[in-house]
């Protein structure tokens, strides 16, 4: 410890130490001279040797190298700027990806003791559901020994706040939800187990910070005031702190105690009936020494207990999956492929950037040959030269990495403005991101700086073959990036401008939420018939249809796997009434419409029919294992998956049991914009306890296309990065080749060669590498796009325009980039060029 302390003291006061040593040696020299001895060697060297004992000389050398590197980079601003831009983009993309991964997967949520938190999810080999029936939750909570506490949240349809037009999202939470998470408040108190854990307590609500600001302008006097949710009076007891994280994505606007759910959703049996629709998301706190696996084991035993009570409720091989819950997301196996894909693309950009810069560094090495030669001549060791050159690369990489970080930060701010991001998510770089930035800067410096530094320090230049391979590889990699981004943009643009296959502009959706209010199928049928009659009486309404799936609303998007001819096929199902096709303007191209409540009949979309029974008559074909027969073929309507090129929709006639969860679709002759308030009041007069969700389908469509437009923007940016990289890379390599052949060019011109001829000689060596690179790149893209097709829909298999366009753009860039150094070569003064040799 003493030695380290002395070492550090030396580092701190090294100036004083050095001065003292100098004085001391000066004295020694004087004394020696007085005694007629003068064997005192090179003082500078001696001083350095003495200082080395402290082990800090590397810092001096590093600083020295850094100073020199800064001067060198400052003196060639064009090169430095290009390099920094390339690195900023190449590294920035990696940092961006890592920062997002960090926020989503690595960062701990700002809750109390996130390490002991587990999220619990009901699963079986076939089924995954976010929701567990509330009575099951109570059973687990009351019997668990591994978990010291369990808490839950239940989603609910959006509610009307006072008489606002914009509904608010609500969550019912167990009374210990906030206390278990250690939540802070911005005002008032949280829901707590002592006061709010009974049905008969006065109704209370806790507001989110966002709603408090937005709706109540951050006024603290809201605490204690009565507001109305779906016309039910409730007292606001507090506002949750801004940094409170939702454990499941979107933050709700209002939190309500779960025991009061029946008060707000009249007729609901969700708290008592295991078979009722809704359910809760569950979390637990592991007791001391308990692991997630142990909790999972115990919950499995409890699930088997539960099966004895409710044999029909528990699935085959059902278990409760227990994941560490202190993070926003746990990487699930199904996410790996998408993640690997993104990582590969990002790394590709990074490697292209490094390769390009490597080429540039090589090219620059030639122009610095003179300087390096002199330094070696006056006694600099090759090791020292190498270290100096590598320090330059490191400096560049660090500048690039930190400006990449700045770019990332800005980018994430823009992203969080474009896509709603919860308040508590902070993109500010933490130690993990900083470590990553430094790590990737060093990696980049090694990738692009090591080989050129070695070559230049050895004063040996690379062979033509290696250079040509480098050009080819660069073209290939840039090609993949360019064509891929072209394909992506094309796919998304195609989607944006394609006809979804159904009319949505004049349609209004209504979800009365019958199932959450305990409606029986009979009551629901009567209600829907009555409502339909009233709606048809409204001015301008031409038809009303029923559909189980909420089209373009905020309903779930789900697909279903059916068996067709022994093969599982993924389709988008819907359960509708005969008016559906007319209302949504979906043509019936073959066969007939569904009859009301008809069973064993299905209508499929055109492309599903073509895919499943190519060249055959689809009518009368078997569909699924329920003995269903195809009775009709409807036009393609990408209702469930606007981003799917293949519209695989299938429609069944809605059965009585589907009525409770039905949505009504109202088609108007003119613009539908004025109708929703009228519709809302009709629905509410029919049954005042219902609070319907009413929306214009066209605004749902707009929300959807907005996301697509943003995607186009992001992908285009990626494509631009690729173009820029390709340009810089080729520029560097051609410049390198030209500068190596300056003498030859000079002789040719001196001997009277035509400039065009010289140019073609210089550029011809790149012809084959560029062509081969382009072909390899195109093949690589075809392979990658096959993979991408599995993740993103709408990427066509073969898009000649995309490929030809990508390759064309790349070759144009290559030519343009080659022209610059080539022109310089032509302007070479033969006499000077030869003289310099």
């Amino acid at each position, binding site marked *: 410890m*003493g*030695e380290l302390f*002395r*070492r550090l003291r*030396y580092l701190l006061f090294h100036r004083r130490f050095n001065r*003292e*040593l100098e*004085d*001391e*040696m000066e*004295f*020694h020299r*004087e*004394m*020696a001279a007085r005694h007629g*001895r003068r*064997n*005192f*060697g090179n003082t500078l060297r*001696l*001083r350095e*040797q*003495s*200082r*080395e*004992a*402290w*082990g800090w000389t590397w810092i001096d050398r590093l600083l020295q190298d850094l100073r020199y590197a800064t001067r060198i980079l400052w003196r060639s601003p064009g090169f430095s700027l290009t390099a920094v831009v390339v690195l900023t983009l190449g590294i920035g993309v990696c940092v961006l990806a890592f920062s997002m991964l960090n926020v989503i997967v690595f960062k701990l949520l700002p809750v109390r003791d996130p390490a002991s938190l587990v999220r619990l999810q009901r699963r079986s080999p076939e089924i995954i559901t976010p929701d567990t029936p509330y009575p099951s939750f109570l059973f687990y909570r009351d019997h668990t020994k591994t978990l010291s506490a369990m808490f839950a949240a239940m989603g609910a349809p959006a509610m009307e706040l006072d008489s606002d037009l914009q509904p608010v999202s609500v969550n019912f939470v167990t009374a210990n939800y906030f206390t278990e998470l250690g939540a802070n408040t911005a005002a008032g108190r949280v829901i707590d187990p002592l006061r709010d854990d009974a049905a008969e307590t006065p109704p209370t609500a806790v507001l989110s910070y966002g709603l408090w600001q937005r709706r109540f302008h951050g006024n603290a006097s809201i605490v204690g005031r009565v507001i109305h949710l779906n016309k039910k009076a409730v007292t606001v007891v507090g506002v949750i702190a801004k940094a409170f994280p939702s454990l499941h994505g979107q933050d709700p606007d209002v939190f309500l105690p779960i025991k009061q759910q029946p008060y707000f959703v009249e007729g609901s049996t969700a708290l008592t009936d295991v078979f009722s629709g809704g359910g809760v998301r569950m979390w637990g706190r592991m007791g001391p020494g308990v692991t997630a696996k142990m909790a999972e084991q115990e919950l499995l035993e409890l699930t088997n207990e539960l099966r004895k009570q409710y044999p029909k409720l528990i699935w085959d091989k059902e278990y409760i999956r227990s994941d560490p819950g202190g993070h926003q997301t746990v990487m699930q196996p199904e996410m790996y492929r998408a993640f690997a894909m993104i990582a590969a693309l990002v790394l590709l950009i990074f490697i292209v950037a490094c390769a390009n810069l490597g080429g540039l560094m090589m090219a620059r090495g030639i122009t610095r040959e003179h300087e390096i030669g002199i330094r070696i001549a006056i006694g600099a060791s090759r090791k020292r030269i190498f270290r100096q050159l590598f320090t330059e690369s490191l400096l560049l990489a660090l500048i690039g990495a930190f400006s990449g970080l700045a770019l990332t930060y800005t980018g994430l701010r823009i992203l969080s403005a474009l896509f709603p991001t919860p308040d508590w998510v902070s993109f500010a770089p933490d130690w993990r991101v900083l470590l990553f930035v430094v790590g990737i800067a060093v990696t980049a410096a090694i990738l692009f700086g090591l080989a050129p530094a070695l070559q230049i320090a050895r004063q040996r230049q690379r062979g033509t073959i290696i250079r040509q391979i480098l050009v080819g590889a660069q073209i290939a990699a840039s090609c993949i990036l360019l064509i891929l981004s072209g394909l992506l943009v094309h796919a998304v643009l195609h989607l944006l401008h394609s006809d979804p296959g159904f009319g949505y502009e004049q349609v209004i959706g209504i979800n009365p939420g019958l199932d959450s209010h305990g409606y029986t199928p009979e009551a629901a049928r009567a209600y829907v018939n009555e409502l339909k009659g009233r709606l048809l009486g409204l001015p301008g309404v031409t038809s009303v249809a029923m559909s189980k799936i909420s089209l373009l609303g905020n309903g779930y998007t789900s697909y279903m796997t059916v068996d067709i001819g022994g093969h599982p096929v993924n389709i988008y199902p819907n359960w509708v009434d005969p008016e559906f096709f007319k209302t949504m303007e979906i043509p019936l191209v073959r066969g007939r419409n569904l009859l009301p409540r008809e069973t064993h009949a299905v209508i499929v979309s055109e492309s599903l029919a073509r895919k499943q029974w190519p060249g055959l008559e689809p009518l009368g074909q078997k569909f699924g294992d329920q003995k269903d027969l195809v009775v009709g073929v409807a036009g393609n309507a990408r209702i469930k998956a606007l981003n799917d090129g293949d519209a695989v929709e299938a429609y069944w006639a809605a059965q009585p049991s589907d009525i409770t969860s039905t949505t009504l679709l109202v088609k108007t002759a003119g613009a539908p914009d004025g109708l929703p308030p009228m519709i809302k009041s009709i629905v509410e007069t029919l049954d005042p306890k219902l609070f319907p969700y009413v929306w214009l389908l066209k605004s749902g469509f707009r929300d959807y296309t907005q996301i697509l437009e943003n995607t186009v923007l992001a992908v285009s940016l990626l494509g631009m990065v690729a173009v820029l990289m390709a340009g810089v890379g080729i520029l560097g390599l051609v410049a390198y080749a030209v500068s190596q052949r300056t003498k030859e060019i000079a002789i040719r011109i001196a001997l009277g060669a035509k400039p065009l001829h010289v140019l073609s000689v210089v550029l011809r060596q790149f012809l084959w590498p560029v062509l081969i690179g382009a072909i390899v790149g195109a093949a690589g893209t075809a392979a990658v796009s096959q993979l991408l097709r599995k993740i993103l829909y709408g990427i066509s298999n073969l898009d000649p325009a995309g490929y030809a366009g990508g390759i064309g753009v790349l070759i144009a860039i290559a030519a343009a980039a080659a022209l610059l150094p080539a022109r310089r070569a032509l302007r070479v003064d033969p006499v000077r060029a030869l003289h310099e040799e």
Partner: protein
Amino acid sequence: MPLMPKSDMPPGALTLLILRVLQSGSLHGYAIAQRIHVLSSEVLAVEEGSLYPALQKMLLKGWVTAEWGISETNRKVRFYRLTVAGRKQLQAEISNYDRVTDAIQAILRTA
């Protein structure tokens, strides 16, 4: 004046000699070199190139401390003094040196 080539001083011996000459009191750098030179009947000459790196190393190890004083020629100069750790090191090095020379002697006598 015949100068002893550096390689002829056994490795590690310089530290031992510096520690030894400092045992009797603090000395400045030049005096250390002089003392070794004189005491060895002018056989051993310590080069500056070895002396100052060695002294820095000993400072780092904490075997000696340095303080400023006034030299015989009335100049401000740094005096080196043995620390407790330095004395221990000296004892260790002496016994180690004795062991090695005894061993070498034994071989020289009997082989």
